[in-house]
C-alpha cells in the first residue's frame, strides 16, 4: 500500500494532464487512483473493474486538493460502499474542493507570494528572492497534496466532515488577507520601479490606469485586461511610431 500511496502521490502532480471538457480531470483522477486500487484487483476483481470505470468518470476540483477525492473514493471502494453512493460522493466533492482550493491557492497563496516576490524585486533582492518564493510555494503544495491523499484515504465517505474539521476552511480567509495586503503594498512600489525616469511618465501611467478603471472595466467581461492592454499599448505604439 505504501508503494501505491507514493505512486498515487506522484501521479497527483499530473492530475490535469489529460484535461478535457468532457471529463475535466476525470482521466487524471483515474490515473492517480490506479496504483491504490491494485490490491483490490487481487482481492475482488469484479469490484476492481467497476471501481476503475468509476475512477475515470467526470470530475473536477482544485488540482492540489484532488488527493482528498482520490483517497476518499478509493477507500470507499475498499469499504464496499455501493457504487451509486461512491458516484454521489464523487459528485458531492466537486464543488467544495474546487471552491476551497481556488480560494486558498489561486486567490490566496499565489497573489500573496507574488506580491511578496514583487516587493523583494523592487527592494533590490534580485532574482534569488523568487527562488525562495518558488521553494516556499512548492513546499506548501507538496505538503497539501500529501495531506489531502492521506486524509482522503483515512476518511472514506466521511471526508466531508474531515475537511470541515481540518485547517483548510480556516486557512483560506487568512491567506486571503495576506494576499490583499501584499498585493496592495506591491502595486505602487512596482509602478515606481517600472516607470522610466521621464517628466510625464507618472501622469501617462496614471491616466491610462484611470481610463481603464473608470471607462473600460464597466463595459464588462468582454473588455478584459489583456484585450484592454493590447488595445491601449498598440495604440500608444502607433502614436509613437507616427510622432516626428
Amino acid at each position, binding site marked *: 500500500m505504501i508503494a501505491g500511496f507514493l505512486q498515487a502521490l506522484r501521479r497527483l502532480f*499530473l492530475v490535469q494532464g*489529460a484535461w478535457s471538457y468532457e471529463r475535466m480531470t476525470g482521466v487524471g483522477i483515474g490515473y492517480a487512483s490506479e496504483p491504490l486500487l491494485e490490491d483490490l484487483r487481487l482481492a475482488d476483481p469484479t469490484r476492481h473493474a467497476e471501481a476503475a470505470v468509476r475512477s475515470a468518470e467526470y470530475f*473536477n476540483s482544485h488540482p492540489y486538493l484532488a488527493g482528498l477525492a482520490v483517497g476518499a473514493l478509493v477507500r470507499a471502494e475498499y469499504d464496499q460502499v455501493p457504487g451509486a453512493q461512491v458516484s454521489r460522493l464523487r459528485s458531492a466533492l466537486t464543488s467544495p474542493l474546487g471552491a476551497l482550493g481556488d480560494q486558498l491557492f489561486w486567490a490566496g497563496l499565489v497573489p500573496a507570494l507574488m506580491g511578496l516576490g*514583487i516587493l523583494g524585486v523592487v527592494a533590490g533582492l*534580485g532574482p534569488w528572492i523568487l527562488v525562495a518564493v518558488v521553494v516556499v510555494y512548492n513546499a506548501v503544495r507538496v505538503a497539501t497534496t500529501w495531506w489531502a491523499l492521506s486524509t482522503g484515504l483515512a476518511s472514506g465517505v466521511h471526508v466531508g466532515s474531515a475537511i470541515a474539521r481540518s485547517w483548510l476552511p480556516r486557512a483560506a480567509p487568512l491567506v486571503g488577507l495576506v494576499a490583499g495586503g501584499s498585493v496592495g503594498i506591491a502595486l*505602487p512600489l512596482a509602478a515606481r520601479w517600472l516607470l522610466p525616469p521621464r517628466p510625464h511618465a507618472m501622469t501617462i*501611467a496614471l491616466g491610462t490606469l484611470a481610463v481603464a*478603471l473608470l471607462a473600460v472595466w464597466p463595459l464588462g467581461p468582454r473588455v478584459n485586461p*489583456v484585450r484592454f492592454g493590447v488595445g491601449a*499599448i498598440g495604440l500608444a505604439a502607433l502614436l509613437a511610431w507616427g510622432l516626428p
Partner: protein
Amino acid sequence: MILETAGTTALLLVWGTVVGIDLVSFPQGLLSRPLIAGAGAGLMLGEPVVGLRVGLMLELFALDVMPVGAARYPDYGPGVVGAVVLAASGPWQETLGLATLYALGFAVLGGWSLLLLRRSNGRAIGRHSAGLAAGDAATIAELQYRGLAGDVFRSAVLSGAAVIGAMLLRPSLPGGDRYAIVTEVAIGSGLAAALAGALRSAGRGARLRWLAAGVVLGVLLAVRP
C-alpha cells in the same frame, strides 16, 4: 545588443516549454507566473534586470487571472520568455512597452492553444470510450500520457514561436525616446489589470480593508524621496 549562442537559445526554448507545461499539466509550481518565467529568461540571457522588468510588468496583468478549471485564460509563460529576448535588444525604457505587447499577443495565442488541446483530449477520450467503459488501466494511462505529450508539444511550439519570433523581430524593433510612452501606457494598463483582479478577489469584507491599507502603505513608501 545581445547575440545568443545556440546553447542559450536552446536553454530559452526549454525554459519556455517548461513554463508552458507548468500552467496546467505539470507541476503547477508557480514557474508559469510571468515574474518567475521572466526572471529565468533574464538569467539565461545574462540580463537579469531586463528579465525582472518584463516579468514584473506581465505579472501585473497575470494578477487579474484565476486559472480556474474550464475557464479560458491566457498562457503568459512562453510569451514572456520571448518578450525578454525582445526587450534585451535596447534601452529598457524604449523596449519594455513593445515587449509587453508582444507577450500579451502570445498570451492570447497560448490561451487559444489550450482550448485546442482540451478539445483534442476530448476527441481522444471519445475514441477510447470502449477502454474507459471497461475500466482498462492501460487506456487511462495512454490518455493521460497522450494529454501530457500534447501539452509538451503545445508549449514547445508556442515557446519556439515566441523566442525565434523575438530574435527575428529584434533588428527591426523601432527605438527612440518616444517609445517610452508605450512603456508608460503598458504600466498603467498592467496596474489597472492587477487592481481590478485584487478588487474582485477582495470582495467587500476584511480583505478589502487589507488591500486598501496595503495600497496606502505602498503609496507612502513609493513617494518617499
